[in-house]
Structure formats: C-alpha cells, structure tokens
C-alpha cells in the first residue's frame, strides 16, 4: 500500500475530527454550562458564606426552571484564601483544565484586579461580583471584565453627599492599606474637597489589612483632634478599631462616616458595641419591604433558615445576571457574552439594574443610613436606597478614566 499526499491528508483530517469531536459535542450544548467562581471563602467568611448561599439559591431557581439555553448551569467553586497569587493559579486551572465558560467572583480588590488582568490576557469573560476598586472598570478596565457592586467611587460619592452636609472641617481617615482602601480614600477626599473646598484632612492611618494595631491607631487619630472621621476598615479590623475607639472615646462628639459598616456581616459581630449615629453604606435587611426583596428574602430564609446578608444579595444577583447574559447572548461564546453584557438589564433583589455599556459597571445601588442600636444589636435607620446610576461621573469623564474604551 502506498500512501500519497492526498490520502494522508484525508486520513489526518479524519483523525483530527475524531480528536476534536468531544469539544464539538460540548459546544453544541450536551453538558452543563460551567462557571468558574473564585472567592476568598476561607479568608472572608463573614461575607462569602452568605454570598455562596445566595449564589446557590439563584442557581437552584435557574436550574429548576430548566436552566439557560436548554442547559443546566454548574458552578466550580475555588478558594483563593485572600491571595491574588492563588486566584490567578485557580483561574488558569479553571480555564485550562476545567474548561469553564466564564469566570466570576473576587472579593478583595487586588484579587479582582489580578483576575481581570488574567481574563484580558486569556480572552475569557470575568464577572467581578464584589471587588470594589474603580480600577477594575476604569484605569485597568478591559473588554472582558464587568463588575456588579457599586464601586468605591459610587459609595464614596453617596457618603460625600451626606458628609458635605456636616459642619465638620477637619477630617481624619483610617483605611486598610491595599487597593480598596487607597481607592476609597482617594475618591472621598477628591469628592469632598470638590463639594466643600474648606475641608482639610489632618490624619491618615493605613493599617495593613487584618493587622490593625487598634489602640495605637486610635490614639494617633485622636491626637489630630479631627471634627469627623472617615472609616474604610471592615471585618476584624473594624471590630478591633470600634472596641478601642469606644473605650478611648474617639467617637464622642465626632461624626463618623463609614464605608460598608451598615452591612449586616460587619455590623452584627459588633453586637451591643455597635456604634451609634455613624453614617454608613449598607443593607437594612429586616426593614426592606420592596416586592423583589421580600420574594428573595422569603426564599432565602426558607432554604437556609437564616436572614440574608449583603453577601447573599451579591451572590444571588451575580448568578442571575450571568444567566440573563447567557440567555441574551444565546451562546457561551466569550465574545458574544461580552456583547450581551453591554447594556444588559437584569432584575436584582434591589430592583432592576444594568451593566453600563460605557464602562461595564452595573448600576446596582446601595443603602445609605445611620447606625443605631435596637435590642442590643446594630441596625441601620433613616436609610434610603441610592440608585448607582446617579452616582457615577459623566460619560465624558468616564471615557477619560477608562483608557480601554
């Protein structure tokens, strides 16, 4: 038998077809759609346990309704332990070994930025649920990255609106020393200066995340005798800071404006020591009675026997918005998904929101209110919902902030 060029090529292409067959079958929609979800489950459990439950609730509802594009959705959860290095390794493994259709998750801002950069290099969609840094969609924004939660800019803008009404002139700042803290402080200072040019910032403390030396930090802030304080810490750092601040009287006669402190995951652990009268962003889970939220709240409570935290909302909304994008794209192709996400309207537990085409930021909002004590527990009072769309810079400014277009 002689092998000429033609028969060799025919044989080779037949072989190639056989080898390529499994992926063809998968692309045609036999198996489930795979989402690779990377988060700091063990490093930030207060937020991410509820997040995962919210995610699973949405997933269950979607798959019970037949899934999307006639396929079920499957999630592969990976724990990055709060380290961008681990997140990048998981992302590589999820794309190459698990062959996921898209990536999602990220809690810490530096982790989110690392996954976003990876997504760009590998041309894979990344739906950033929680990382708040503006760089995720602006300075380092890219075609493949979308973000759900209101950013540091948006939350700072919401808080500045209230802060500017205060008589305070001298401000002190405490923030964790990484992307989220730096970014929040930058915007708060910029926006507050713009709204009230006579304010001055008299002290800044940037403890490393999770390593605050609370007593000394409180003393250093106290020494600058500020009229008001802007706090960006959260979780364990916040707890230690509040306890030392309460005993040492740092908060007495001063208004504190604080990022995220109204979220039950950070307010509840403080128990009876929860600060009173702080102006915060957060989530008044028990008192919010809109139809969308009540429906979500009841379903969540029925499934998990616990009330939702803000993390639950973020997980629930992320999954739902991904499902909406898949349905709109009609495909799991990354480029089609990206195009579908631009301007995608989706229903959230807080009402309808939209991923803006201009910068891939969603218009999901946040609640701004004051902290108070009720039955020995911290709660939010006098709150109102701030629609994210109203707290973003003009389109012209966004274009300047986002070189990627």
């Amino acid at each position: 038998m002689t092998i000429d060029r033609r028969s060799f090529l025919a044989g080779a292409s037949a072989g190639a077809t056989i080898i390529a067959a499994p992926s063809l079958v998968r692309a045609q929609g036999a198996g489930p759609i795979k989402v690779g979800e990377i988060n700091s489950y063990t490093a930030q459990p207060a937020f991410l346990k509820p997040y995962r439950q919210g995610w699973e609730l949405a997933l269950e509802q979607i798959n019970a309704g037949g899934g999307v594009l006639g396929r079920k959705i499957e999630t592969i959860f990976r724990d990055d332990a709060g380290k961008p290095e681990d997140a990048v390794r998981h992302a590589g493994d999820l794309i190459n070994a698990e062959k996921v259709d898209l990536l999602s998750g990220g809690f810490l801002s530096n982790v989110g930025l690392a996954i976003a950069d990876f997504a760009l290099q590998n041309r894979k969609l990344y739906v950033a649920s929680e990382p708040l840094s503006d760089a995720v969609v602006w300075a380092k924004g890219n075609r493949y990255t979308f973000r759900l939660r209101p950013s540091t800019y948006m939350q700072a803008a919401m808080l500045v609106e209230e802060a500017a009404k205060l008589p305070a002139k001298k401000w002190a700042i405490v923030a964790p020393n990484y992307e989220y803290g730096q970014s929040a402080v930058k915007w708060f200072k910029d926006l507050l200066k713009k709204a009230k040019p006579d304010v001055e910032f008299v002290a800044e403390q940037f403890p490393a995340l999770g390593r605050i030396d609370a007593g000394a930090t409180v003393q250093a802030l106290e020494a600058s005798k500020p009229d008001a304080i802007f706090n960006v810490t959260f979780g364990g750092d916040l707890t230690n800071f509040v306890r030392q601040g309460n005993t040492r009287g740092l908060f007495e006669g001063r208004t504190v404006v604080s990022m995220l402190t109204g979220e039950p995951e950070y307010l509840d652990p403080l128990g009876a020591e929860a600060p009173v009268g702080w102006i915060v962003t957060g989530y008044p889970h028990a008192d919010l009675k809109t139809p969308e939220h009540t429906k979500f709240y009841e379903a969540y409570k029925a499934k998990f026997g616990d009330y939702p935290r803000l993390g639950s909302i973020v997980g629930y909304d992320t999954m739902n918005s991904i499902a909406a994008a898949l349905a709109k794209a009609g495909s799991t192709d990354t480029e089609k998904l990206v195009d579908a996400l631009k301007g995608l309207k989706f229903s959230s537990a807080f009402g309808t929101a939209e991923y803006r085409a201009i910068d891939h930021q969603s218009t999901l909002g946040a609640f701004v209110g004051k902290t108070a004590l009720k039955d020995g527990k911290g709660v939010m009072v006098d709150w109102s919902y701030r629609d994210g769309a109203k707290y973003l810079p003009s389109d012209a400014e966004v274009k300047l902030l986002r070189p990627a277009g």
Partner: protein
Amino acid sequence: MIDLILNQTLNGLASASSLFLVASGLSIIFGVTRIVNFAHGSLYMLGAYLAWTLVGRFGPTDALGFWGGVLLAAVLTGLIGVVIEVLILRRIYQAPELFQLLATFGVVLMLQDVALGLWGAEDKIGPRAPGFKSFVILFGNRFPTYELFLIAVGPLVLLILWLLFQKTRWGTLVRAATQDREMVGALGVNQRLLFTSVFAFGSMLAGLGGALQLPREAVTLHMDLSMISEAFVVVVVGGLGSVTGAYLAAVLIGILHAFGILIFPKITLVLVFLVMAVVLVVKPYGLMGKAPVGHQRAHGPAEPLLLPADGLTKLAGLIGLIILALAPLVAPDHILLTLTELVIFALFAASLHFMMGPGGMASFGHAAYFGLGAYGAALAVKWLGAPMEPALLLAPFLAGIAGVVFGWFCVRLSGVYLAMLTLAFAQIAWATAFQSVDLTGGDNGILGVWPSAWAVSKPAYYYLTLAVCAASIVALRLTIFSPFGYGLRAARDNPLRAEAIGLDVVRIQWVAFAVAAFCAGIAGGLFAFFKGSVFPTYMAIPRSVDALLMVLLGGVQTVSGPIIGAFAYAGLSEQLMKLTMYWRFVLGLSIVLLVVLFPRGLVGAGLALRERWRKEPEPAATLVEARP
C-alpha cells in the same frame, strides 16, 4: 505632644505583654529542647479560641467565669502542648534543626485546619473583661483599664518566671539544661519528663497570651502566623533562651510599633524586621543571649559523601529530560502548565539545595530571592517598559545583588541563627514589597507581566522554561563537583581544617550564598512571566517553607533530591488543594510523617537502601574475622 508620646508608650507596653508571654514560652522551649517551635503561634491562637469558648460557657459577665475561663484555656493549651511533644517532637530531638523546624511547621498547618474545623472561619469576638471595662484619664486621654492590666501582666509574669527559675528545683534543672543538656542527662535527670514539662509550660504561656487577647482583639484564624513571626523577632532580638531578653525585646518591639504608627505609618512592618537584622548583625546571639557553650554538637551520623553521577544515573537524568522535552507533543494545556510550574520549582529547590546541602547553610528565607527575581522582572516591565527577554536577564541580578548584600551578613553566623537572619532578611524584602505601594503596588502586586508574543503559547513558554532551568540546574551540579564545590563542602564539614589548608571559608560561603540567590532569581523571573503577575506572597514565609520541603523531601545530601522533591511536593500539594478543603491538615500531617519517617528524604532513603543492599555481605565478613 508629650501626652501623645506617653500615651503611645503605654500602648506599646500593653501590646508588648502578650508578645512577651508567647515569646518567653518560645524562648524557654528553645533553651531546653533546642527546638524552634514554629507552632507556638498556633498555641497562642488555640488559647484565644479556647478562652472564647470557655468564657462563653462559664458566663462572660461573671468575674469568676471570665478569669476562670482564661486560666483554664491556658492550662488546656499546655495539655495540647504535651500531646504535641509526646507524639511528635520527642521523636525528632536528634534530627537536624531544620527538620525540627519543619515538623513544627507541619503542626502549624494541622492546627490551622483543626481550628477551622472546630470553630469555623468566622471571626470570634470576645466579651470585655469584668472589672476592666472602663477607662482612666491618663495624660489628658482616655486609656482603657484593661490595657493597664496587660501592662502589669508582663513584669508580673517575668517576676514569677524568675522566682520559678531561681527558687525551685525544676527551675534549676531548666537553667542547667539550657546551658548543657547532655550534662544534665548524664547526671541522671529524667530528660523526657523535663522536656515534656518545659514544652507544656511554654505552651501554657502561649495559651495565656492568646486568652488575654480576648477582650482586646477579635479571634481569627490568622492570629497564628502574624504572632509567630513577631515572637521570633522578639526571641531572636532578646537572645534565644533568655527570658529577660525576651521581655526587653517585646517592649522594644511593642513601642516601636506604637511610634511607628505615628511617625512612619506606612513602613511599620519593615521596621520590626529591620531591628531584628541590625541586632543579629551587631550582637549575633541577641541582646541577652550567650553563645552556645563549647562546640556545636553535630547531630546524627556524618553526612554521606556526594559522588558524581555514575553512568546509570546520568542515563536516567537524560531520559527524564527527554521525556520532559517530548511532553508538549502529547500533554494537554493544563498538564503543560503544571509541568512548567514544576520545572521552575525544581530550579528554585536546586538553588536552595546548593547552599543548604553542599554549603551547609540552611536558609529559612530563600523565597526572598525567588520573589526578588520575580519583582526584578516585573519592575523592569512596569518601570522600564522592557520586553520579556531583557527583563528575564535583569531579574536574577536583583536577586543576586540582594544575595551578595544579605549573604555578607548571614555567612558570619551558623545554624539556627543563620536561618533566623535569612528569615529576617526575607521578611524585610517581603515587607518592603508589601508596604512600598508606589514602587511595587503593595498588596495589589504588579499585573500585566506577560511574555513576548513568540513565547505566549503554552508549549513555547514551557520550552523556554525547560531550557533555562535545565541549563541552570546542570550548571549548579557541575559547580558542586568543581574545585569550588569541594571547597564549599570542606568548609561545611570542618571550617577549622578548611581554613588551615588555606580556604577562605567565609568568602566561599558568601559566593555560594550569592549563587544560590541568583539561581532562585532566575526561577522567580520565569515564574513572573509564567503567571503574568507578581505579588508580595511570592516571598512570604510559606514559599520559603515550600522550598525547604522540596529539598528535604528529596533529601538534603543528594544532588538529584531537590529535583525529585520539587516534583513530588508541588505535585502533591496541588492535587491536595483540589481534593479537600482541609488540605492544610493533610499537608501538615505529611510533613510531620516525612520528618519522622524519612529524615534523609526520598532520594536519600533510596540511596541508603541501595547502599545497604550493596554493603550487606561485608559487615558479616568482618564480623567473622573479628572473632578470635
């Protein structure tokens, strides 16, 4: 201003107390057993968790319930110490120092998952201490009474320890053992009991330190490592084995922290390790420490002689290389990614082995040079806009220069002090990367360090990595069997004789240190472009431990060991991480078992087996001849 200074001093003293409790326990344990107990921070964490549970159960508002809970937590932690000592440490007192350090690191990993399993991942917030809930006005500021109480605890415990050591028989024995434990054993003292009781006592102090933090700080799963690195600093600065030194150093570090926050709020982490490095350079045995009495006793049997590979081994190496070279033809992308990582780690491990095995210098901070190589590459990309090729060339030089500078100080020490100084330098490098946000991006890292277009594809980058790493490893191997390598081994085995025949021991070791750093830098540069990003975690303690484990798993006194160790360890930990949420526990357990069962490593064990098989008939023959 003066008020503020006084207040910050008090703050420093308050945080010094817990630090002192942990560090004094660590110091006493080291003094007697010569074990650097990495798990001491974990005992501190367990103390805090136990106190949280017990106080919650006994009633936090009741004074008896609170203080009873705190004390009981300390006692329970002491009992846990007994379990650790009896089950693990007792078996490895004769092992080389580094093995002991690693075994205790295995315990750290295990306890981390035990705490995670028992208490969950959520932070725990303790109640305030009854009787100490309020504040007093001091220097015009409110100061919590509990902090005042803590300030008093430090000197109080110091006094108790002093009385215990001066006035009781047990204390006398402990002091005697700290000076010369063989002599104490020779005089008929029950060493086992002494060691166990000392370990229990040290653990109890750590537990008390943790329990007393309850009203002050949230209890978290990260307490262990952040405490242990500070406690190391305190013990080393104070002088290993010296309790008074530990107190002085704890106060020094505590106050440094408090004022660091005022004056240099952004470099607090660097400051601490800088102080440690300076002290070690100026007073190698710490502020109050004494040089060990007499000769340092060699542990275990003499190191086996390294031999150049015979034909069979060379062939095996060549076949291995060919298999690796052919892998891209059959392996799918994700296997190729794993292989790339393994090859990089093999070079990283080989570079550490070069200074550890033939050089006899155990580094506990080798990740610094790996990380500096990675940062060298990333900084070249970020600040010079360099493409991959020149950045890769530049990378090892940053690591090499650091190796030259750090090495100059390190080679003047030996044993555990050298390991501690390398750790201090690694922590300085880590803290610098972590806190100099403008230069390195801090915790955000440097992103976008991607390879040039030709090397983007996975097989291309794999071949690049394989070529560079294989060449570097072969070069390291050739160096070991070059005159320089023989000189290095002579310096390790007997520095006096080496000096006597005209070898400049310090310079040889210095060069070896720099070479090892340079090679680790090559690995780091490759790793940066492989991952596309660089983070401070590249030079954190766990990465240094990874390197040590790879070398020890393979076997320190073999040349091919580190390569096999790298493949075995990196492969294992990656699989574990995917398989179970409690991978730390399994990994920690494997480390402990490894140290207890295979003190010569995998390759070492294999060689020993071959050796025995070859030599089997001979001793029998001599035995017969020896009979009259």
